[in-house]
């Protein structure tokens, strides 16, 4: 097997990177580069007009700045809320941790649309929050909490929190707690031990989580579009408008290219951070040129120092009342994550033909119409099947690459990493149309294969980011010990490496699955009569009428997950008791 550090080097870094690079070349690079070439063309040949137009457009520049601001803001909030939660989960026992992680991933199972509607209900003028504020006398008339920035942030942070919590948690599980204990026994205060010993060790998780959240925010538009007000118009919204309505592919490609360039510039500026997060401490120095970052270094260093000072002060305060604060924050965040379900589940039993909350009466009519409609059932089965296959395939090509990125030294490592995660930045609508233009002439539209490939494109960046974060601070001495005791590489891989990496693999699978399962954009382009994913059906449905049907889908998924969890638990316990002879 190719994953082992020393003995199998000859299998080669190239061999580990090849599957992911070939996949990306076929379904991503070739189509997207083709489309980007379009952004330099007009009827007369090569031109920069499209770029000049966009870069001199005040609207575009303002959108760009606002989109970046929102993405940074959401990332910071996710870190502030997500870190304490990840910390709590890393301290509780395994069973409770599994349950908490499950709860955290639940919001993902409701389509963005119904989740967003739930927020409109909760935050609206007659919503729970306003009723509470008025009943305690904080305000006499409803406060506008939705269709403005408050609404956008509420929705965006909720959606992105799991992306922060999982990688940070994965990093924390690998920290040897005896280190902080040692610091304390040597006279350090618990707060100081936490901030000087523990927190720095979670750095790879923070970088991984922040990367995921930030990149995902950039291309996200349904939530700002639905929860935002008149001023909350995002770049991705403009790009989608250009592709789907105005048929201005060159304009869309130009805007996407500028966005991508800026993000790449940010990465290059922070390349040492990323290079560090890609490198094992034990391995050789990064292949990046050192010392050429003189101009950016002091600025970044200063920022970083100031930031960590603030964090430190904050941490000292928090740690004095640590446990209470920690539990309170965790409980509040968990509640925040599941709030939409408190609306969605009752709504699915509504007797009304339109969305209204609380429902005027209760009935099973929407369940009946779901189970009696083969269209819904077929779409559900299609989505489940293809998303699972795509998630597995993403792991298959993504994991070897993650091992190479985290453990090997090779030229162009950082560019390769950026390439692999870039599908998260390029607005999905641009990738979708690019892919469509390539596959349509070959009559591949409307096949399961094309969905499998497209969904892999959604899954691979998650798999690689999460697995690379998981491989950081990975205690390689266990592997070395096993190997030195004569274990063959394959045995080491399957008995030591993969089991230790399991939390990361599970969260990578989950993200890859959910990204595929929730996808509307590829569905818009690639669906055919025999291949219609569930979100497309929901989307068709809401385009015509907003009715409680989509809340039924969300509730059924919730039910399936709970049943799955209980079954897994029960089976686990049975097996356990058998092993123990009880």
């Amino acid at each position, binding site marked *: 097997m190719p994953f082992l550090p020393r003995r199998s080097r000859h299998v080669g870094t190239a061999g580990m990177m090849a599957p992911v690079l070939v996949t990306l070349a076929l379904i991503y690079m070739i189509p997207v580069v083709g489309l980007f070439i379009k952004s330099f063309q007009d009827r007369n040949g090569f031109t920069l007009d499209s770029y000049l137009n966009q870069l001199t*457009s*005040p*609207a*575009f520049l*303002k*959108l760009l700045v*606002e989109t970046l601001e929102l993405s940074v803001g959401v990332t910071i909030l996710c870190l502030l809320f997500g870190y304490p939660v990840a910390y709590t989960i890393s301290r509780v026992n395994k069973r409770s941790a599994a349950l908490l992680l499950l709860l955290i991933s639940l919001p993902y199972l409701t389509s963005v649309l119904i989740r967003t509607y739930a927020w*409109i*209900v909760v935050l*609206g*003028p*007659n919503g729970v929050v306003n009723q509470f504020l008025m009943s305690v006398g904080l305000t006499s008339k409803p406060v506008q909490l*939705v*269709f403005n920035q408050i609404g956008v942030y509420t929705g965006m942070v909720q959606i992105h929190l799991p992306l922060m919590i999982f990688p940070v948690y994965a990093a924390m599980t690998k920290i040897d707690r005896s280190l902080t204990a040692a610091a304390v026994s040597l006279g350090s205060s618990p707060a100081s031990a936490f901030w000087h010993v523990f927190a720095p060790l979670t750095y790879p998780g923070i970088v991984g989580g922040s990367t995921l959240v930030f990149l995902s925010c950039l291309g996200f538009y349904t939530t700002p*579009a*639905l929860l935002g*007000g*008149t*001023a909350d*118009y995002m770049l991705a919204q*403009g790009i989608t*408008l*250009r*592709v*789907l*309505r*105005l*048929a*201005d*592919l060159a304009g869309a490609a130009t805007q996407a290219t500028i966005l991508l360039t800026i993000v790449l510039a940010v990465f290059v500026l922070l390349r040492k951070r990323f290079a560090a997060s890609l490198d094992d401490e034990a391995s050789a120095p990064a292949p990046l040129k050192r010392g050429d970052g003189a101009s950016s270094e002091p600025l970044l260093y200063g920022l970083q120092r100031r930031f960590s000072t603030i964090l430190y002060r904050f941490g000292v305060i928090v740690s004095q009342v640590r446990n209470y604060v920690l539990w309170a924050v965790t409980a509040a965040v968990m509640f925040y994550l599941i709030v939409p379900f408190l609306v969605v589940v009752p709504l699915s039993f509504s007797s*009304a*033909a*339109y*969305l*209204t909350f609380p429902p*005027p009466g209760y009935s099973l009519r929407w369940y009946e119409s779901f189970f009696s409609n083969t269209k819904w059932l077929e779409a559900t089965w299609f989505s489940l099947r293809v998303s699972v296959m795509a998630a597995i395939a993403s792991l298959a090509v993504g994991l070897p690459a993650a091992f190479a990125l985290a453990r090997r030294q090779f030229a162009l490592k950082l560019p390769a990493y950026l390439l692999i995660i870039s599908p998260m930045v390029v607005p999905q609508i641009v990738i979708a*149309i690019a892919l*469509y*233009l390539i596959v*349509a*002439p070959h*009559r591949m*539209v*409307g096949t399961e294969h094309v969905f499998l490939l497209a969904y892999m494109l959604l899954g691979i960046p998650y798999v690689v980011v999460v697995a690379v974060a998981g491989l950081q601070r990975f205690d390689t001495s266990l592997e070395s010990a096993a190997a030195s005791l004569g274990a063959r590489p394959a045995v080491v891989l399957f008995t030591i490496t993969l089991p230790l990496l399991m939390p990361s693999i599970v969260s990578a699978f989950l993200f890859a699955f959910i990204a595929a399962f929730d996808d509307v954009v590829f*569905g*818009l*382009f690639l*669906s*055919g*009569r025999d291949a*219609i994913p569930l979100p*497309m059906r929901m*989307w*068709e*449905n*809401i*385009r*015509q*009428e*907003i009715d409680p049907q989509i809340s039924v889908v969300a509730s059924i998924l919730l039910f399936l997950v709970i049943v799955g969890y209980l079954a897994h638990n029960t089976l686990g316990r049975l097996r356990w008791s058998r092993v123990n002879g009880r």
Partner: protein
Amino acid sequence: MHRRTLLKAAGALGVASIFPAPLIAKSLKGSGEVVIYDGAGAWGEAMRSAYFEPFEAETGIKVIVEPTTDTGAVRASVMTGAPRYDIYIFSGGYANSFARDGLLEKIDFSFFERSDLDAFRPAKPTDYSCPTIIYSLLMAYNPAAFPNGGPQTWADMWDVSKFPGGRALGPGSWGGEAGTFEIALLADGVTPDGLYPIDFDRAFRSLDKIKASIVKFWESGAEGPQLVVDKQVAIAAAWNGRVSAVKDQGGEIAMSWHQALLQYDEFGILKGASNVENASKFIAFASRAKNQADFSNKILYAPPNSNAYQYLSKERAGMLPTVPDLLALQIVQNQAYWAALRDDGKDNTQYAAELWENWITR
């Protein structure tokens, strides 16, 4: 004045004056299939029972429904040489821009009955397109918010002191499709026959006056009525079919037909389609008065073939936007204007979208 506007608008639609339709239409019998877009949901259901099933029974041609897609994706499919449908349903005048760019096949009107063709109003077929549904963008409001009588005209919607509460409009980035520019101009006192060409400066100045009260520019047609029912806004621009549907199901919502904007969707046969002849046959079948009446009995879209009213009950007809009493109150949107090219090579929809982005980010 309204009638004059109607005639004028009909003239502006580029009607091909004489179709090569014989006195007796050719038989629609055939074989094979026709691939069509059905818009899904209640609309798709109505098409299935009024058009697809009887068409299959009469002609032996199988109707295949492909999933819903947006205009941009459909255009891409035609350009790759693998059109996604034989027949697409165009809104917002996009059939005109497809026809202009050579992306549509001509419809064979020899399959049509002369009497059907002559009865299309207010929107007429062209060489490349044939209207299929007519609907109205009107003012929906929460009646409980205005116990002394609700707003009637767009100027009332702009009068925040007389009719307090939040407002919702469609996005101007859709060009003419959400009617926002026409509405802003009508509210500012522009007469219906002075609407086109759109005075964008004046439209934005008018929008400036109400911007502070606008809670939301909606993103889908179902959202407008939903915002009213949820009491998020007091008044919204919305499509009549959605408002009626919510009202029928017990939602608290009222509407005004005054100065409502009459819009329509058109069938078009995509260039390079595999079943061009079957597509013409289907469009002819779906243009018959009786079939359109069956359709309008299922869903509140008006039949473009005015003879369909002969088959509709008085009660049902009274709810449809093109029944004469209601038609007189409304303005037919000039959808061809929105697809027309400007000097810089952009069409009015693209131009409006850019101005809109500048305006909302200002």
